[in-house]
C-alpha cells in the first residue's frame, strides 16, 4: 500500500459556538444537529469523502464527548480506513509542554506529527461550522494549476456584511495582493470561507515560524496568511459559487434549516450526486396520523405526528400530539410536543418535553425573535415561553 497521501484534511472542530447559547452548553458546535438527521460536521466530512480525501484529522477541544462518539470510527462517512481515515485529535501532554490548542494555527501546529505521518503534498484546512457542498478536489486542481503556496476558498457576500469576514483583495487572475481581517471599510466583498489548501512544506514552515513568535495570536486569518503574503508567497483565491452558510448564530441556524424546505430548496440535502453522509437513526419510518396536517416540512424517521406541522424541520423520534401545532420551528431528536401545545418560530433541542397546552415562541411577524429551548428540559403544562427567550432549565410558567 502506498504510504503517502497526496492531501490530508485538518478539520477545526474545537469551537465553543458561544453564539448558539443553550444549544452548545454541552456539545461542540460541529456536533449541533441540523436538517432533521444531520450534524454540522456531516457536511465537511461528506465533502471530504466525496472529493476523494480519505484522511481527515478532526481537532477537538470544547466538550468533545458527543462529537467523538458521533464520529466514532468514521464508518458512516466511509472513513474507517486501514491507512488514513478519520482521526480525532485532542490536545495532549508532551514531554516539553502541555497545553490547550491556542488559536487555529496552534491547533494545527500541535498536530504536525499527525500530518507528517502521511507525507502529504498538500494540506486542506477546514472548519466545522458551515453548511455547504464543495468539491475540494476541484479546488486542489486549481491550487496545482496556479502553482500557489496557499489557495483560499472565497465567496461573494453582500457588501454591507463584508466587514464581518476576512476579505480578500485580488488581482484579475485571482492572486491575492491583500488580506484584511474584518475590515471596517472593506475594499471588496470577496470573503474568505476559512477553507485553505496549503502546499504542505510551506504550511509547516510558517506554522513553525509562527510558533516562535510570542506576539502572534496563532490564528490563520490574523497571523499565518498575512505572514505568507508579506513574505511574497503565491496566494490565490478560489471562487466558490453556491450555497454556503455559517450556522454560528441562532438566526442563521434557523434560516439554514428552513433553506432545506420546498420543492426547489435553496440547499438540497437529497442531492444524489453529492450525498451527505451521516449516522442514521435506528428508528422505524415516521408515522403520520389520522388527525395530522403536515405541509412544507422535513420529517425524520421515528416521528409520530398527530398534530399540525407547518414549515418546520423535525428530527428523528419527535412526537407531535393531537391538537398540537408546530410552525416555523426546528425540533431536534426525541422531543415531545404534547396535546394542544403550540410551538412557533423556535429552535428546540433534543429530548425536550413541551407540556400540554404550553406555548413556546411567538409568530415570526411579531418580531420578538426565535425562542430556544436547550436539551432535556421540560416546559410545564400551560406554561408560556415568549418569543426570543432562551431557556436551558425546566420551566413551569409564572
Amino acid at each position, binding site marked *: 500500500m502506498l504510504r503517502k497521501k497526496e492531501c490530508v484534511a485538518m478539520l477545526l472542530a474545537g469551537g465553543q459556538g458561544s453564539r448558539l447559547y443553550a444549544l452548545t452548553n454541552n456539545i461542540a458546535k460541529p456536533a449541533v444537529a441540523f*436538517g*432533521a*438527521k444531520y450534524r454540522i460536521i456531516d457536511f465537511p466530512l461528506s465533502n471530504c469523502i466525496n472529493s476523494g480525501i480519505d484522511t481527515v484529522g478532526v481537532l477537538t477541544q470544547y466538550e468533545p464527548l458527543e462529537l467523538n462518539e458521533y464520529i466514532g470510527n468514521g*464508518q*458512516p462517512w466511509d472513513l474507517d480506513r486501514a491507512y488514513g481515515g478519520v482521526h480525532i485529535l485532542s490536545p495532549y501532554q508532551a514531554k516539553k509542554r502541555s497545553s490547550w490548542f491556542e488559536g487555529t494555527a496552534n491547533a494545527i501546529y500541535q498536530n504536525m506529527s499527525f500530518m507528517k505521518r502521511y507525507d502529504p503534498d498538500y494540506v486542506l484546512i477546514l472548519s466545522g461550522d458551515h453548511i455547504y457542498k464543495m468539491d475540494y478536489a476541484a479546488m486542489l486542481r486549481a491550487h496545482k494549476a496556479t502553482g500557489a503556496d496557499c489557495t483560499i476558498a472565497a465567496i461573494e457576500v453582500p457588501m454591507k456584511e463584508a466587514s464581518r469576514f476576512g476579505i480578500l483583495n485580488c488581482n484579475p487572475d485571482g492572486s491575492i495582493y491583500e488580506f484584511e481581517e474584518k475590515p471596517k471599510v472593506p475594499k471588496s466583498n470577496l470573503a474568505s470561507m476559512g477553507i485553505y489548501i496549503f502546499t504542505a512544506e510551506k504550511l509547516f514552515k510558517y506554522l513553525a515560524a509562527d510558533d516562535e513568535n510570542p506576539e502572534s495570536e496563532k490564528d490563520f486569518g490574523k497571523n499565518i496568511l498575512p505572514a505568507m503574503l508579506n513574505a511574497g508567497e503565491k496566494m490565490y483565491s478560489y471562487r466558490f459559487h453556491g450555497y454556503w452558510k455559517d450556522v454560528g448564530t441562532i438566526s442563521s441556524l434557523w434560516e439554514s434549516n428552513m433553506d432545506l*424546505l*420546498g*420543492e426547489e430548496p435553496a440547499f438540497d*440535502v*437529497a442531492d444524489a450526486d453529492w*450525498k*451527505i*453522509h*451521516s449516522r*442514521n437513526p*435506528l*428508528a*422505524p*419510518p*415516521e*408515522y*403520520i*396520523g*389520522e388527525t*395530522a396536517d*403536515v*405541509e*412544507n*416540512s*422535513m*420529517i*425524520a*424517521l421515528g416521528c409520530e405526528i398527530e398534530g399540525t*406541522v407547518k414549515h418546520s*424541520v423535525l*428530527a428523528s423520534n419527535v412526537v407531535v400530539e393531537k391538537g398540537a401545532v408546530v410552525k416555523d420551528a426546528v425540533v431536534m431528536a426525541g422531543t415531545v410536543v404534547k396535546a394542544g401545545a403550540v410551538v412557533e418560530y423556535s429552535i428546540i433541542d433534543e429530548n425536550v418535553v413541551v407540556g400540554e397546552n404550553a406555548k413556546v415562541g411567538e409568530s415570526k411577524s411579531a418580531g420578538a425573535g426565535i425562542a430556544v429551548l436547550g436539551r432535556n428540559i421540560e416546559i410545564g403544562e400551560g406554561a408560556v415561553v415568549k418569543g426570543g427567550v432562551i431557556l436551558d432549565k425546566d420551566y413551569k410558567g409564572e
Partner: protein
Amino acid sequence: MAHSTVGVIFSNVHDENIPELSRHRTMASVPFGGRYRLIDFALSNLVNSGITTVGIVTKNNYQSLIDHLGSGKEWDLARKDGGIILLPPYSDDTDKPYTTRLEALMGITGFLTHRSEDYVVVSDCDGIAHMDVGDIVRFHEEKGADITMVYHEEDQPCESSYFITLQPDATGRIKGLKINPGDLKKGKAYNLYVNVMVMSREFLINTIQNAVTRGFSSFGRDILAKNVDTLKIYGYGFKGYYAGVNSMEDYFKHSMELLRRDVREELFGNRDIYTKVRDSAPSKYLEGAVVKNSLISDGCVIEGTVENCILFRGVKVGKGSVVKNSVIMQDNVIGTDVSLDCVITDKNVVIRDRRHLAGCESLPYFIAKGRML
C-alpha cells in the same frame, strides 16, 4: 446465554408463499415495513438476545441478500469471531443443491461442528415478531428438551404451502404434530409452529448424521413427526404479535397492521430493529401534501395525498395524485394526478401521470420491480 447460542437463519424457505415478491430475491430480502427486509426481524431478535454468530443458509437468488447484509456491521455482526456467516449451498459435481431443510442442514454440518456454542436457534424469515430468544433458550434448558418449537395461536387457516401445527400438553410437551392439516377452519383456534426452534448443537449434529445414514430427507416428516413420542419435543407458546407472511394477502394485511400503534410499539417500541442504511435525506412534505395514517420512510418527497399507506425509501408522490391503502416500495416515482388504491408496487416502479389503478384488500394489485406504467 449470550455466548452459548448460535443462530441459523434459512433465507429461502417459504419463497413460494409470495412468488411475486420472491421471484428475484430470497424470502429473507423481501422488503417490509418501509425500510426493512424480512430477515431484519429474525436477525434483530437474535442480536438483541446477545447472539453474535449467525449462519445464514442460502440457496438461490441471494444477491439481494448479500447486498443487504454487507459485512453485517448494521447488526453489529461484523465480528472477528463469528458474526454473519453466509452459508451458500455446498455441492460437488455429482450433487444437486439441497431441496429440503434437512438436506440444507446436512450441508452446514461443517459450520455447526466448528462452532463451540451449546445451543442452536434455527429460524426462518417468514415471520414478523419481537421475540426474546433468550427466553426460549431458557425454556428449552428448564424443560430439558431435545427440541423446542415456538408456536403461536392462530384462528385463520394457514395459507402456506408447508406448515406444521402442534398439540402441546399442559407441561408444554408436544403430543401431536401435524404437517399441512386440512381441517383448519376460520375462527377455530390452533397452534401454528412459527418456524423458530431451539436444539443443543450436539443434538442437532447427531440428528443430521443419523439422518444422513438412514437417507432421511424431510426434517418435519422424518425427524419431528415420526419421533413425537420418543423425543422430548416441547412447544414454547409465543404470546406477542406475530405476523406470518404466507401469501400476498398476508403480506398486505400485515403491512397495513403496522399502521396500528399497538403493533408498532410491540415491534419497535423498546428495542431496535437493525437494517441496512442508505444515507437518504429525511422525507419532505411539500406545499399541498395531505398525509393521513401512513408510515413514511426517509428520502420521500410528497406533494399529493397519501392515506393508509406504507411508503418505502425514496418514493415520490406528485401533485394531485391520491394514493390510498397501498404499499409503495423503494424509489417508486408516482407522477401527477395518479390514483392508486390497494396496490403493492415492487422497487423502482414508475407510474406515469393520470394512471388509475386499483385492487382490493383480498387481492391487492401487484406491480413488478422496475415496471413503467
